[in-house]
């Protein structure tokens, strides 16, 4: 065993020195290979991180939301509906939410205006998200004016800016008292934007949703799991499309790798001829070539992965963010939680190392099969 290990170590030594002797060619290959790994890894890491953020955000959202529909569109829901929902067995709490969108022509962005359940906001005062505070240069004590549904301007005093840690959720959020929301949007008493329903047993949420649909056919129950599934599918789809687009680049790289492995220089042919003349067998030359390929593959894999990690988790993925994460005027500033799983590494391995290895086996074997007399004659 020790002898075999020593032999492999010597082969690895020889492979490294052989790679270094042809550093121009090998550095070019390494550069292109690393770039490919970097692009694919960036897509994978970024998508995975966005999915994790979405899952974390959704963990705090209501597990079941009920909206009223009118002509297939979202409509305001009467408070009486809440009473009927409370009669369903398994429902522990039903509460009405008041929220809406307000278009601010000054920054050309939509705000989400909401009456919070947990925080008490005094009338004629607001709490604003960090995105709005940046866009409108607001701070505690500033005045923010909204135009009501009837055209009347309504002034609110900014009582505070929501913490930047929650920016992913609150960048475009304005929190105000329920009475102010009603006055701003002209909502009558007894009407809510939608209802949130809490269910005692999380496994019964789907059953409760089915009962709601039966009891109130003009409503639409939305499950938190459904929203999570939609996010997962959307991010996976975006990543899948990008990877499909990059498969052209992968193919080009494989042709490049094949060409590099097949096009032996006179010096390489001479080297193999000399090794064979000295008594090396084809299997040993193949092992040497395997080590050369492994060194290039692993180095490119690690370099590309590391660069992708820095790109996504340190630099916030400037090259991919516009395509993968979506866009908005008041886009939140947020930092993705660094995370790389074995699963992502295995996918990356299947995308890069497997095709590279498959593309270079035959040319490598041809190179290893060269005989000394062939080399001398040529």
């Amino acid at each position: 065993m020790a002898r075999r290990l020593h032999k492999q170590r010597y082969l690895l030594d020889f492979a490294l020195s052989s790679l270094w002797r042809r550093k121009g060619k090998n550095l070019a290959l390494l550069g292109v290979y690393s770039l490919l790994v970097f692009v694919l890894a960036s897509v994978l890491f970024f998508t995975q991180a966005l999915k994790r953020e979405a899952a974390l955000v959704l963990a705090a959202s209501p597990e079941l939301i009920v909206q009223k529909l009118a002509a297939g569109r979202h409509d305001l829901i009467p408070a009486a509906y809440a009473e009927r929902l409370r009669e369903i067995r398994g429902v522990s709490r039903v509460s009405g939410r008041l929220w809406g969108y307000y278009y601010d022509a000054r920054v050309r962005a939509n705000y989400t205006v909401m009456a919070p359940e947990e925080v008490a906001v005094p009338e004629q005062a607001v709490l604003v998200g960090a995105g709005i505070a940046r866009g409108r240069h607001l701070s505690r004590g500033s005045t923010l004016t909204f135009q009501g549904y009837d055209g009347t301007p309504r002034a609110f005093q900014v009582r505070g800016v929501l913490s930047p840690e929650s920016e992913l959720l609150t960048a475009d959020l304005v929190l105000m008292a329920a009475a102010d929301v009603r006055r701003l949007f002209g909502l009558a008493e007894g009407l809510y934007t939608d209802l949130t329903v809490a269910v005692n047993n999380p496994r019964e949420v789907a059953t409760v949703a089915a009962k709601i649909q039966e009891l109130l056919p003009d409503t639409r129950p939305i499950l938190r799991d459904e929203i999570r599934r939609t996010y997962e599918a959307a991010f996976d789809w975006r990543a899948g499309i990008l990877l499909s687009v990059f498969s052209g680049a992968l193919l080009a790289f494989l042709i490049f790798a094949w060409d590099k492995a097949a096009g032996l220089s006179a010096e390489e042919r001479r080297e193999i001829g000399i090794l064979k003349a000295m008594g090396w067998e084809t299997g040993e030359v193949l092992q040497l070539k395997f080590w050369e390929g492994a060194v290039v593959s692993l180095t490119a894999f690690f370099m590309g992965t590391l660069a992708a990690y820095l790109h996504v988790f340190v630099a916030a993925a400037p090259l991919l963010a516009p395509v993968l994460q979506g866009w908005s005027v008041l886009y939140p500033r947020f930092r993705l939680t660094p995370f790389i799983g074995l699963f992502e590494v295995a996918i990356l391995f299947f995308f890069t190392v497997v095709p590279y290895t498959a593309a270079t086996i035959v040319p490598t074997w041809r190179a290893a099969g060269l005989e000394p007399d062939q080399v001398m004659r040529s």
Partner: protein
Amino acid sequence: MLMSPAILALLGGGGLTAGLLCTAAAAGVPLLRHFDLADGSERQLRLERRTSLISTLVAHGAAFELVGLFLFLSTADRLHPFFVGAMCAAGTLNAHPWGYPALLARLAVSILAGVWLIVHYTDCQGYDYPLLKLKYALLLPMAGLSLAAAFAQARYHLGLAPEVITSCCGALFSAGAPTVAASLAALPRRPLGLAWGAALLVLLGSGLSLIRRGRGGYLFAAAALGAFPVSLAAFISFLSLYFYELPTHHCPFCVLQGEYGYVGYPLFLALLTGVVAGVGVGVLMPFRHRESLAATLPRLQARLAALSLSGYGLFAGLCLHRVWVSALRL
């Protein structure tokens, strides 16, 4: 089809691996027909040269198959949120009729690939290609199976539709359901526990005999092959209950989830190692008296037996540890 990076990687990787193995099998047919070490013709020389190409192709293909099996399982597990009713890989695989055939085909290819790697390694120890014909004969069903696995996997992944409502482990592995899995879950615990214990004891006895005295190779291989389905049945029937601490949950896939510390991966990897190394011992038995292998083969078989025992030992150890520490008492 779900446009997931994992699915794209599996589709591409599966196709490439099947391509490698089929190319190797096609290149191996002339070797099966014409290889003759006593022949000094140019054709024979060409065939001898070709062996190194085929070995390299298959060694890589086999390694990719083994990694691919676990990636396939892991992907099935991670896709479960897309299907209403699915809680783990059991539900995702059930979401399309080609799901379970794809898994079984991949499992069969992986076992065959492992055995092939053992035969290849042994062949390299002899100076006269002693296992060459066996090696290339094994390659044909392996390539066919690999192609079938890639096809089944492609049908499965391309046919997956998120709106499908599927049944998961709670229904598939519940004792009353009309499925094979449910029949396994319904197997009586005590007799099956005794059968599992007996299978492991026979394996241990024959393994120790092979390691110490070099005898009982066929018995050991048969015991290793037999212990595989018995261990799986025991896991589904009663061992799984201790992992979940639920007297009615028999799923073999939920243990792949983070909630259970991903313990399913070492469990099934150990089981796969046990069966592959054990079957490898049996496949090599007819060649014990070949002159070129006489010195190395018994030692190699002893090492394989030890590896197989370690695999089954790890599986049994992890399960028994769980039985010991579990809050569930049956």
